[in-house]
C-alpha cells in the first residue's frame, strides 16, 4: 500500500509553491510602482504568471522517468532550432533571438536553459559517478555547442545561464577537484579569445563595468543611476511608490532588468534582507528535493536547476549593485516579462515532479 499526501496526489510541492507565490506577489507589487502605477501592466503580468503556474503544474504531473526519456530529443531539437534562428530568426534590439512561429514568437535559447541540464543529468546518471575524464570531455562539448550558438545571437546573459546550468550538474555529479581546477585555468586563459569575439556593445559594457564614471551619460548611466537609487533608499527605504530616482525616470529599464534597484530604493536594506530570505527558502527547498530524490537523474537535475536559479539572482543583483557588468539577466520571478518566467516555472515543475513521484514502500 502506498500512502500519499494531497501534495503527492496532485504532484504539488507546497513549500516550493508557497515560496514562488510570495515572490511573484512581491514582483507584482514592485512592478506597480516601477511601471508608473500602471494597473494594466500589473494585470497583464498577473495573467502571464497564472499561465506559467499552470504550465508548471502540468509539467509536475509527468513522472521523472518520462522527463529523462525526453532529454535527448529536447536537446537535439533545441540545437536544431538554435541553428534555424541564425538563418531565419527575427531581429529584436540588435540581437537575433526569436523564431517566429506565426502563432507566437519563440526563443529557442530559453529552451536550452532546461534541456542542457536535463541532457547532462540524463547522460551522467546512466553510468556510475563520478564521471571519467572522457565523459567529462563529452559533457563539456554538449555544453559548449549551445552556449556558443546563443552567445553568437548575441545573448551573453542566456549563454552564461545555460553554461551555469550545465556545469553545475557536472559539479554536483562529483567531477574531481583537479579537473575542475584545470577547467578554471583553461577558462581564464580563454578570456582574451572571448574578448576578440565579443560585440562592440558587449566590450563597452565590460569596460564600463570596470570604470562606470568614465562615461556617465552613455554606457555607465545604468550603473550609476541604479547605485544612486539603491544608496539613497537607505536602511528602511523611501516607501512604496515613493522612489524618486525610479519615478523621475532617471533609472532605465526599471520594470525589467533593473527592478531590483526600484525595490532597494523603496524598501531599503530591510526589504532586501526579506527578499533574500524568500529566495534562500526556495533554494533550500530545491536542494532538499535534490538530496532526497530517489534517482541520480533527479538528484542531478534538481540541484542543477536550483543552482541556475541562484546564479540568476546573483548575477542580476551583482549587476544592479554595480559589482558585475551589465548583462541582460532578469531578477527571477520579480522582473517584468514572460519568456524567462515560463522557463523558470517549468524548471520548478520538473523539481515538483521529482519530489512528488517518489515511491515509498510500506512494510
Amino acid at each position: 500500500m502506498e500512502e500519499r499526501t494531497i501534495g503527492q496526489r496532485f504532484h504539488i510541492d507546497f513549500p516550493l509553491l508557497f515560496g514562488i507565490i510570495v515572490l511573484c506577489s512581491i514582483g507584482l507589487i514592485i512592478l506597480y510602482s516601477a511601471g508608473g502605477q500602471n494597473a494594466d501592466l500589473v494585470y497583464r503580468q498577473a495573467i502571464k504568471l497564472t499561465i506559467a503556474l499552470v504550465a508548471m503544474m502540468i509539467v509536475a504531473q509527468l513522472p521523472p522517468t518520462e522527463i529523462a526519456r525526453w532529454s535527448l530529443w529536447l536537446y537535439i531539437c533545441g540545437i536544431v532550432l538554435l541553428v534555424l534562428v541564425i538563418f531565419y530568426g527575427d531581429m529584436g534590439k540588435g540581437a537575433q533571438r526569436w523564431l517566429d512561429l506565426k502563432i507566437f514568437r519563440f526563443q529557442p535559447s530559453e529552451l536550452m536553459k532546461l534541456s542542457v541540464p536535463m541532457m547532462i543529468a540524463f547522460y551522467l546518471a546512466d553510468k556510475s559517478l563520478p564521471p571519467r575524464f572522457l565523459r567529462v570531455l563529452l559533457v563539456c562539448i554538449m555544453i559548449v555547442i549551445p552556449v556558443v550558438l546563443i552567445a553568437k545571437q548575441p545573448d551573453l546573459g542566456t549563454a552564461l545561464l545555460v553554461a551555469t546550468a550545465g556545469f553545475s550538474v557536472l559539479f554536483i555529479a562529483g567531477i574531481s577537484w583537479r579537473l575542475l581546477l584545470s577547467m578554471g585555468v583553461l577558462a581564464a586563459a580563454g578570456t582574451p579569445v572571448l574578448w576578440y569575439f565579443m560585440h562592440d556593445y558587449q566590450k563597452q559594457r565590460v569596460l564600463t563595468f570596470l570604470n562606470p564614471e568614465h562615461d556617465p551619460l552613455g554606457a555607465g548611466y545604468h550603473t550609476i543611476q541604479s547605485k544612486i537609487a539603491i544608496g539613497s533608499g537607505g536602511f528602511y527605504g523611501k516607501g512604496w511608490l515613493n522612489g524618486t530616482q525610479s519615478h523621475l525616470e532617471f533609472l532605465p529599464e526599471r520594470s525589467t532588468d533593473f527592478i531590483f534597484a526600484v525595490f532597494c530604493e523603496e524598501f531599503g536594506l530591510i526589504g532586501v534582507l526579506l527578499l533574500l530570505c524568500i529566495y534562500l527558502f526556495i533554494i533550500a527547498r530545491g536542494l532538499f528535493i535534490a538530496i532526497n530524490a530517489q534517482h541520480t537523474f533527479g538528484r542531478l537535475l534538481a540541484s542543477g536547476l536550483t543552482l541556475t536559479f541562484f546564479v540568476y539572482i546573483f548575477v542580476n543583483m551583482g549587476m544592479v549593485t554595480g559589482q558585475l557588468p551589465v548583462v541582460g539577466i532578469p531578477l527571477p520571478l520579480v522582473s517584468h516579462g514572460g519568456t524567462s518566467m515560463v522557463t523558470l516555472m517549468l524548471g520548478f515543475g520538473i523539481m515538483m515532479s521529482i519530489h512528488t513521484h517518489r515511491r515509498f514502500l510500506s512494510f
Partner: protein
Amino acid sequence: MAKEFTLKDNEFESRLIARRVFFAGLIILLMVALIISRVFYLTVIQHEHFTTLSKSNRVKITPIPPIRGLIYSREGVIIAENKPSFSLEVIPEQIEDVDRLIEQLSKLISIQDSDIDRFKNLLGKKRRFESIPLRLNLDQKEVAIFSVNRHRFSGVDVVAGLNRFYPLGEELVHTIGYVGRIDEEDIKQLDESNYSGSTHVGKLGIEKAYEDILHGDVGFQQVEVNAQGRVIRVLDRTAPRPGQNLHLTIDLSLQRIAINELNNRRGAIVAMDPANGDVLAFVSSPGYDPNKFVNGIDTRSYSALLSSRDKPLINRVIQGKYPPGSTIKPFLGLVGLDNGVRDLAQESWCPGWFSLKGHDHRYRDWKKGGHGYTNLHKAITQSCDVFFYILAYELGINRIFEGLSWFGFGETTGIDIDGEASGLLPSKEWKRNALGQAWYPGETLIMGIGQGYALSTPMQLVKATSSLANKGKIVRPRLVSSTSDPISNDISYLNSHIENTIQVKNQSYWDDIITSMKDVVHGVGGTAWRSGLNAKYKFAGKTGTAQVISIAQDKEYKKEEIPEELQDHALFIAFAPVETPRIVVAIIVENGGGGSKTAAPIARKMFDHFMGNNNLISEG
C-alpha cells in the same frame, strides 16, 4: 576495470551528491553574504553620499516639442500661428498640500474655479512627477508678480510655451478646424515618443487632416536639474524638427465676400477652381471662434454652441445635406441627351402640372399657368418642372441613378479634410435595403426636380458643377496646395488629382447644357437674368429652390404662413467665365426662399470680385 561493470552503487552516489550539494549550499550562502554586504555598503555606509547625489544634481532627459507648422491663405495671410504664452505649472510630487498651495497662489494670481477643476482632473490622470498647468495664458503682470514670489513656491513654475492662435477667428473655422489638448483617446492613436513633449494635437479640419505634416519631430535635451526639479543647465541637445507650413488654396478676399453676403444667415458657400480643384472659398455659416477650443472650452459656452438653433458646429459645406432641387436639372438634361431619350428640339407640353396615367395626383410646376411648349433649353433656362417630370419618367430611376453617379452624387468628394457626408443618391436597391419598400413611379418624377430622397452637400454640388464646366473632367477638390519648410523655405507642391473623365456619346451635349446654363443668366426669361445684368463677362448657372416641407395638394405655398426654419432653401450653382471656366460656386442659403432672388446675386458678387482681381493680375 571491474568496477565499470558492477551495479551502480546508489548509496555511494547519494552520499557523493549530498556532499557536493552541501558544498554548493555553502558557496550560495557566501555569495548571498556578498550581496548583503554590498547592499549594506550602498544603503547604509554610502547612504549620505547617494542621497546627496539623488537630491542635488541630477541629469534628466526632457523632450523638446517641435514648433507646429503655420497655415497661410492663398495670398499669404497667416491663418494659424503660434503665440508665446506663459502658464503656471505645478509638479504635484513636490507639493505637500495642493489645496493650500492653490489658496496661497490665488492671493497673487487670479485662479478661477474652472482652472481648479481642470487641474484636479489632470492631477488624477498624470504621474506625480509630471508638471501640470494650473493657470494658462498668464499676462506679463502676472508673470512678474509670480516671479518675485517664486522662492515661496517650490514645485511651481512659470512655463513659457507656444499657444496655437487663429487670428481670423471664426472666418475659417470650418476649413482649418482647431487643435486641442491631447486627451486619452488621442494618446491611443499617437506616437508616444514623438508626442512626448507635445500638449496639443489637431482635432478638426486641416489641423487634424494634416497633423503629421504640421506637427514635426520631437527633439531632446539632457538637462541638469536640482532637487526641486528645476533645470540648472542644459548638457546636450538634439534639436526638434519643426512642422511644415501649409499653404491653403483659400482666397481670403473671396472668402470674406462670401461671409459678408451670407451675413450670419444659415448657409454654405463653396468656390472652386475647376482646373485643379483648388477650393477658393469655403464658408459654413454661422461660424464660431476656434480659439476657445485650444485649451478646452468651458461647459457653458460649449452647450450654448451645441444648443444653438443655427447649429454653428456643423460644417455645412461637407456635412450639410440638402435636396439639390432644380440645380439637378442640367445634370439630368445631359443624362437624357446621352441616353437618347431626348434631343434638343423635342418639346413637351407644360400646362402647369403633370399626372401619371391612371393617377389623379398632380405634380405641379412652380409656374402656375405652365410654360407651354418646352424644349430642353427652355426647360433649363426657365426651370420648367413638368419637362423634367416627363424626362425623369422616360429615363426611369435606374438610368437616373447611373447618370447622376457619374457626377459623384451619393459619394464623398474626397476633399482633404475628414468628416465628409456622402449625401444620398437613391436607387431601387437602396430603397429596398434601407426602407424595405419598393420604388414608386412618383418618386422617379420628383427626382427630376431634385426632391424626394436625394440629398447632396454643397461640396458635392460644386464638384459636380466643375465636372460639367470641365466637359467631363472630374477634379478632386483640395484645400492645401503646397507645404513649405520653415527652415529652408523649400516649397513642395502637392499634385492636383484628376479622378476620371465622363464619356458622353457626343461632345456637343456638354455645349448644349452649358449654353442653356448661360441663358439661365444671360438669356431671355432666364431665372437668374437679374444677376447677369451688365456683367463684363459671361457666366453660366442654375437656380434651385429646395422644399423643406411638402405642400398638400390643395394648398399653396405662402411664405408668411410658414415658420422660418420650414421655408425653402435657396440654391445656386454657377461658373465663370463660360468659355474657359476659372471659378465654380455652389451656394445654399437655408430657408432663404428662391434661388434666383437670394442665392444668385451672391454668385455675381463673388464672380465680379474674382474676375476683376484676376484680370488685374493677368494684365499687370
